[in-house]
């Protein structure tokens, strides 16, 4: 069954989606089958594409809106929300 889920998660203060954190985020997204988009500041990116996620330029304290569609959408967003909340630098 195709499920669709949305979630919003706040980037921790002092953390930006630059190369290493974006790599963690994209690898987490890539471990799910669902199609996942991440939006910030009015722009959207494929959550499985490192270059488009980095181009969002999301900084600490900004909200990321996550949307997943697919059989594992809910699990994907749970994992990604935890991933973003746990980013340290």
């Amino acid at each position, binding site marked *: 069954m195709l499920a669709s889920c949305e979630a919003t998660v706040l980037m921790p203060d002092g953390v930006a989606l630059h*190369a*290493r954190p*974006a*790599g963690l985020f*994209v*690898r987490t997204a*890539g*471990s799910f089958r669902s199609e996942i988009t991440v939006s910030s500041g009015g722009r959207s990116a494929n959550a*499985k*594409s*490192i*270059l*488009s996620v*980095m*181009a969002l*330029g999301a900084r600490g304290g900004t909200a990321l809106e996550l949307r997943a569609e697919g059989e594992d959408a809910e699990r994907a967003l749970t994992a990604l929300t935890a991933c973003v909340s746990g980013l340290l630098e």
Partner: protein
Amino acid sequence: MEKMVGIVLVSHSAELARGLAAVAAQVAGPDVRIEAAGGDPAGGLGTSADRVEEAIRRAAAGAGVVVLVDLGSAVLTVRDILEDRADGSVRLADAPIVEGAVAAAVTAATGQPLEAVLQAAEEARDARKL
């Protein structure tokens, strides 16, 4: 764990290839094989077919290899090598080397097949930084 596509970085400069391998590994994590093949055997700037062949052997884990190149003779050297390999398990990406290497390595880290890793590298042609 499933086999991952390996990545080979071919540059005229050994330092550039090694440094880029380090950057890509930091973004993609420790599980992907990212091999640098830079410089000529005498330690100068250039490309070495032997170095590229060795790097391809080290990167190959059974799921294929994507090769990224910087400029000019690096392209020609890799094309010559790949002409002798008809099995399609080693592919040259038509992509900018820095963005392409990072995109390919991260995609490989998620266990995607050769075509998907190649495509991720080549999508870097259109990726904007801003």
